[in-house]
């Protein structure tokens, strides 16, 4: 069996701002897919809410002639990411296989340096344990089976996605381009024997459109498109060449792979 992470690819996303109507369905979908915690009203008031994708809303003009514009912002998966070199323990690192910026929760020690050095503010710290069950605050809670401890489990735990870690307090988290979906798709390709063999190395290639992050899947207006930027035939590559394209805070040289499309209005 080939290494599921083999092959070359460069995942990317195109966000068409002219199509976004700010409905925030992507925010909800992401929260459900990735077990993003609900911090509660008090914590939101203190700026501790987490949303791996958010819709920033900006107002134009003076009342009553105002117009809102929306900008969904998720981790830009920079190819030259400022958060990566500053992490002292490689919890934030560049996953060479997926060309995506990874965050490994169980390696993270919570220096919060990466979040400071992220110009897009897309890294979220777990200020508390937001688990459904009243887990005894042991330090290595991950190894303790609550069932064996005789605790009554909160039924809400069944809504959690088993493919995604439920983060404990003290670690940083962020958008992963739904890596669990990408990896599942890749395993499916292998299972069906659909991997290519080039120069003796087996490459696993996921067909265009076979993977969609939760936000892309749920976007009702189709403003979000996801795919492989290294494949010139993919939908995302074609959209990325649009003359409406720009990248957020491009002047910082972070080389994001999230590409925004916006028509300049007079």
């Amino acid at each position, binding site marked *: 069996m080939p290494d599921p992470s083999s092959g070359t690819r460069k995942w990317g996303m195109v966000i068409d701002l002219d199509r976004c109507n700010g409905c925030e369905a992507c925010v909800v979908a992401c929260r459900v897919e990735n077990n993003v915690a609900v911090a509660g009203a008090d*914590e939101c008031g*203190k*700026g*501790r809410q987490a949303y791996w994708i958010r819709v*920033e*809303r*900006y107002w134009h003009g003076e009342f009553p002639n105002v117009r809102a514009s929306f900008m969904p*912002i998720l981790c830009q998966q920079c190819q030259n990411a*400022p958060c990566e*070199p*500053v*992490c*002292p*323990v*490689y919890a934030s*690192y560049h996953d060479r296989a997926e060309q995506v910026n990874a965050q490994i929760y169980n*390696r*993270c*020690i*919570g*220096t*919060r*340096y990466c*979040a*400071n*050095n*992220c*110009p*897009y*503010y897309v890294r*979220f*710290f*777990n*200020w*508390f*344990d937001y688990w459904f069950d009243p887990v005894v*605050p042991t*330090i290595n809670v991950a190894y303790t089976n609550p069932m064996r401890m005789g605790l009554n489990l909160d039924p809400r735990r069944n809504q959690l996605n088993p493919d995604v870690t439920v983060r*404990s*307090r*003290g*670690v*940083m988290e962020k958008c992963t381009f739904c890596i669990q979906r990408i990896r599942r798709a890749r395993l499916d390709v292998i299972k069906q024997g659909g991997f290519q063999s080039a120069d003796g190395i087996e490459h696993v290639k996921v067909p265009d459109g076979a993977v969609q992050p939760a936000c892309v899947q749920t976007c009702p207006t189709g403003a979000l498109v996801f795919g492989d930027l290294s494949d010139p035939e993919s939908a995302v590559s074609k959209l990325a060449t649009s003359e409406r394209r720009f990248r957020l*805070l491009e002047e*910082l040289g972070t080389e994001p792979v999230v590409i925004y499309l916006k028509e300049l209005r007079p």
Partner: protein
Amino acid sequence: MREEPVHISDAQINEDLTRSLRRPSLLFVLVILALLVVLGVGVILYVYMVLSGMGVAGINRPVQWGLFIASFVFWIGLSHSGTLISAILRLTQAEWRRPITRGAEAMTVFTVAMGALYPLIHLGRVWKFYYIIPIPDGRGLWPNFRSPLVWDFMAITTYLTGSLLYLYLPMVPDMAVLRDRSTGLRRQLYTLLSLGWRGTEQEWRHLHRTLGVFMVVILPVAVSVHSIVSWDFAMAIAPPTWHSTIFAPYFVAGAIYSGLALVVTIMWLLRWGFHLENYLRADQFNNLGKMLFMMSIIWFYFWFSDALTTWYGRVPAEFETLRQTILGPFLPFFVTMILCNFVIPFATLGFRRVRTTAVGFVVSLLINVGMYCERFLIVVPGLAHGRLPFNWRDYAPTYVEIGIIAATFAGFILLYLLFTRFFPAVAIWEIKEGQLLRSTRDVAGVKLPTITRTE
């Protein structure tokens, strides 16, 4: 205040400098108890924070680093001058250094110890802190040597070890003095610490040679430590105003400045507390005051160059952060900083009468108030008002942060007081050596004070 050095008999020196080791006064015991209470409250708050999560502190998104990191920079900055001033003055063979060195070196060790706590305190999962240490393991995982935090870890542990040794080495002869004059448990402690020192010529030669190497080596270490602390900020591109080339020298200058101010504060307290009027004289305070005066100018020069460049550059995000600092919600801190760090010291320390009186003591305290504000202003505004205004948010510390920070202040004072209870705060042998080398000679009919040098 006494100006000229007086000759004091060896017996009197022993008596004066070991006075602090005798039975403590009631006030001393009460102060220790009070400090223990503050420390205890801080420890309880810290355990509470570890068990419940960092959310009990006031930090938020985007101000992920708050008062903890400001205090970290502050403490590491304070640590700077002790070893540095002692090494520089030893290196330049300034005679007036003799009563200062020990107290300054001890200050360095205890401030670094307090500063080194902060990276642990502010860690989200402190029980995994060892991930940052390069230990080979079966998983093949190493720390990221590109990260300034790893440099920090290396630099601070090196500096702590170095300054601990640099404090201990010149203490060995004094330990022998105490060993010969104490009984019971104390005698055992001093016997252990004096390493069998007898005071032979060869031992002195070894000591001086080792010190000679040490004070040269410790200088670059000291400079590197605060440069690396500054690079924690300067290597980050995202928060406006952090990514600045001037940060390393600016931090070093600020560190020397605040550390010197603390040395002055401590020297005044030692003089008053232990009646060292014959040792800590106008000479010392005068010279230290002049250095403070100079450092206030240098500090302002660095701050001004940085701010002016940002102001004229008008890069939107950076300019906005600077505007928020100077005219926005951070105005009180900014005013305090400029007043305490530049205006007051610059206006007063030029006068000898200020430097050598209790006013100098007050000014030295004010400088560190200003420096704390400066550390705060370096860390917070760049985070609070970043590049995407949608995410702007202000920051206010909670009682948890304040309690923990107060505990480290109490911890420092406690450690220092306990140090003076067990070790002479002024090096006995250095004072005696100074007296041996000093004499008044007849030069062409004029009586001149002279110093003999040992080679």
